[in-house]
């Protein structure tokens, strides 16, 4: 993720203050997120049918 992208996402998330005061931490957070999501995408190979939504349960009164 390049610097401009990090800046844009941080602003969209409302992190202007953190960008001003802790730019290194914002950049580190972006790198950490990128590493985590890269791990998901590489190992996923998911079928579109494998939805995470659980089945509905009938409540017996």
């Amino acid at each position, binding site marked *: *993720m390049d610097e401009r992208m*990090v800046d844009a*996402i*941080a602003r969209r*998330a*409302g*992190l202007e*203050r*953190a960008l001003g*005061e*802790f730019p290194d*931490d*914002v950049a*580190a*957070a*972006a790198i*950490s*997120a*990128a*590493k*985590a*999501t*890269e*791990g*998901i*995408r590489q*190992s*996923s190979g*998911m079928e579109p049918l*494998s*939805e*995470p939504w659980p089945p509905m349960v009938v409540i017996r009164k």
Partner: protein
Amino acid sequence: MSELHWMAANAAAAAIASREVSPVELVKALLDRIERLDPRLNAFLHVDAEAALKEARATEAEAAKGRLRGALHGVPVGIKDIIDVTGLPTTCHSKIFENNVAARTDAECVARLRAAGAIILGKLSTHEFAIGGPSFDLPWPPARNPWNRDHHPGGSSSGSGSGLAAGFFPMALGTDTGGSVRNPASACAIVGTKPTYGLVSRRGVFPLAFTLDHVGPMTRTVADNALMLGVLAGHDPLDPGSVLLPQSCDYMKTLEHGVRGLRIGFVRHFHEVDMPADPEVVAGLDRVALTLQSEGADLIDVRLSALQDFAAVNRVILQSEAWSIHSEWLRNRPGDYGRLARRRLMSGAFIDAGDYVLASRQRSQMIGEVEAALREVDILLCASSMDPACRIDEPEEIVRTYMRQARTPFNVTGHPALAMPTGLSRDGLPLSVQFVGRYFDEANLFRVARTWERAACTDALHPPLVE
């Protein structure tokens, strides 16, 4: 009686019931030890000495009349400071909550301990909001490891692990979202259980990530862990994740049944291939496997997804859910977080919705995979930490070794998991093992753990604290 501070919770409860030990005498001995040793360990954020002594006197008077509140009558306990205790502020070890008002009610887990007669000694050190630590830029210093105070005690339930190993209390509450009960258990040579998701209520506990958070018992012995979990377990209609229990939670009945006939799946690739472990950790795991085999268990090799895949799913879900909790403060008060928590919590802002859904899908697959393995075996045996605890003042080494662990898979899947010691390294630092069970089958988890404890006398491990 000498060495009251090493007394196990079940032994203390029995001694109090038979009036061989007074709760006042026990609490005073522990408060005295805390006063002498905690300034060098920082396990406590707040010692509630007055309230503890008041409760000790009350339980003593009740015991004298033969009235016992429950299984933990008069036994002291420490509470991780993200868990509400009536009359005390919950600070989450953070400047954000430094001036928090006192909690008006107990968290459900604390209420259950109190109802069983436990005495709250105080609030314990944690990583900031159970994620950012060990940190030196917070209002309170980080807890240190009693085995070597230059080393970290694991986290995030760091005060719980440190205080148990130091003999400050026989039981503590911890929480576990990515391994935070089992990490200090591994680093401090104590016993820590992350129960099945939904077994113990999280109501009154400050959340880190709703679908990964667990409250768990931390003790010095397996029997105490089983006893404490029996008190904590139970349905809470006000915790949406809490389940109606399918069976009894008396884990003491089968504790000494041994492992003959149990099938134990050894997940070797976690520590041999995915994250090659320190040779002393490997030797400890092999000792456990051989011992259980010699006690009559069948040992079978089991293969699961790579640790890195579990870790990625855990991180995407954890960071996303944590961002949803902390985003307002991160926008308006970023400077009130320590650097580590600020970095880790802001990560969620950079994870898109699609990745969260992808991680949730992958999580379902991983649950199916572990369930399939546990249809073939009764218990999984695997590493907890791949290395002994590193120095607390080496941030790069902490980051490197924190990732080298096999705990997050079972936050992702919700299976119960227990970490305990295998022995000590040549440098005198704790080494550890992890056992994993089927959903709500903590009884077998404790059986296996107790068999290892009995064979290796791991409950006799105490750090050589210089007083």
